[in-house]
């Protein structure tokens, strides 16, 4: 992936972070999934940031758990696609 690809990665990641503050959570979730596909750890990072900002006592940290699931899933998805490309 060239400079354009790197730029897209950064833009998606920045948009996902800004969405936590500005947009409804479903929109932030979609951007989080997109960011995770580019950078698997982004899901977990975004989930933790979300809970840091909004979590109130008595709730499970749903966003962090979802972020973790997203990160693990996207890691395996990326591994799968890499393997497919290498093996033809």
């Amino acid at each position, binding site marked *: 992936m060239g400079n354009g690809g790197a730029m897209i990665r950064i833009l998606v990641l920045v948009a996902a972070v800004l969405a936590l503050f500005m947009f409804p959570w479903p929109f932030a979730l979609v951007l989080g999934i997109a960011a995770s596909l580019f950078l698997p750890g982004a899901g977990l990072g975004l989930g*933790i940031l979300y809970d840091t900002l909004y979590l109130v006592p008595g709730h499970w940290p749903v966003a962090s758990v979802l972020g973790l699931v997203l990160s693990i899933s996207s890691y395996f998805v990326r591994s799968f696609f890499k393997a497919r490309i290498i093996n033809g």
Partner: protein
Amino acid sequence: MQYSRRRNAFLSGSTWPVAAGLGILVLLFFIFRTFAPDVLTAIATPFWQTGDQFSKSAAAVTLPFQNTSEIIAERDQLLIENETLRNQNAVLTAQVGDKGALGNGLSAGVLARPPVSPYDSLVLGLGGTDGVRVDAMIYAPGGIPIGVIENVTSNTSRAILFTAPGRVTEGWVGDTRIPVSLVGKGAGAFEASLPREAGATVGAVVYAPGPGALPVGTVLSIDADPSSPRSTLHIKPMVNIFSVTWVTVGL
């Protein structure tokens, strides 16, 4: 001679720095949240304010292109105003004999609300330096209690709404003030359970304790299973938490 390296399925050489970065990130957020919440909210506040302005601007831009939507929006606005007036009337009625009970509160702008925050919480633009304290009640326009302050930093505070999932608030239903436990269901909705013979009706006003009994919603529907001795009340809140732009914080 061939050497083989043991391959870790989860952490290859290139993912170690990412994992380490995430570990640092987790640690930083924990430190921010626990020891320096002011720093985090100071960083976040401009973004929340920008988001709030962005929502307002987007609504203003799209309005001229929505003839039908414009009429519907106006109707909705009138309905809200009508409901607010009805609420104010109910509050005043409930407070007869308890004059000035609400007292003076602090008007606080809402920086973040559902659905931006998914936990039925509000981030307010007033904090400890303005006199906000933990456990203070917050009221929507019309004097309707909607939650309590849960966390305070210097310049911001976070409130948890009564409608947060699983949160239990004691209250009353109907003119005869039948005691009931209101259970938050999230997204601004309540549920309650009552014995079938209690006599709750659809449309009955639901009250929460405040200075007196303050109306918080109306009974939308009642699920009465013939095999159960209790019926479930679905309660429609009087305040649309998705559009609350300012609240009053009790002192």
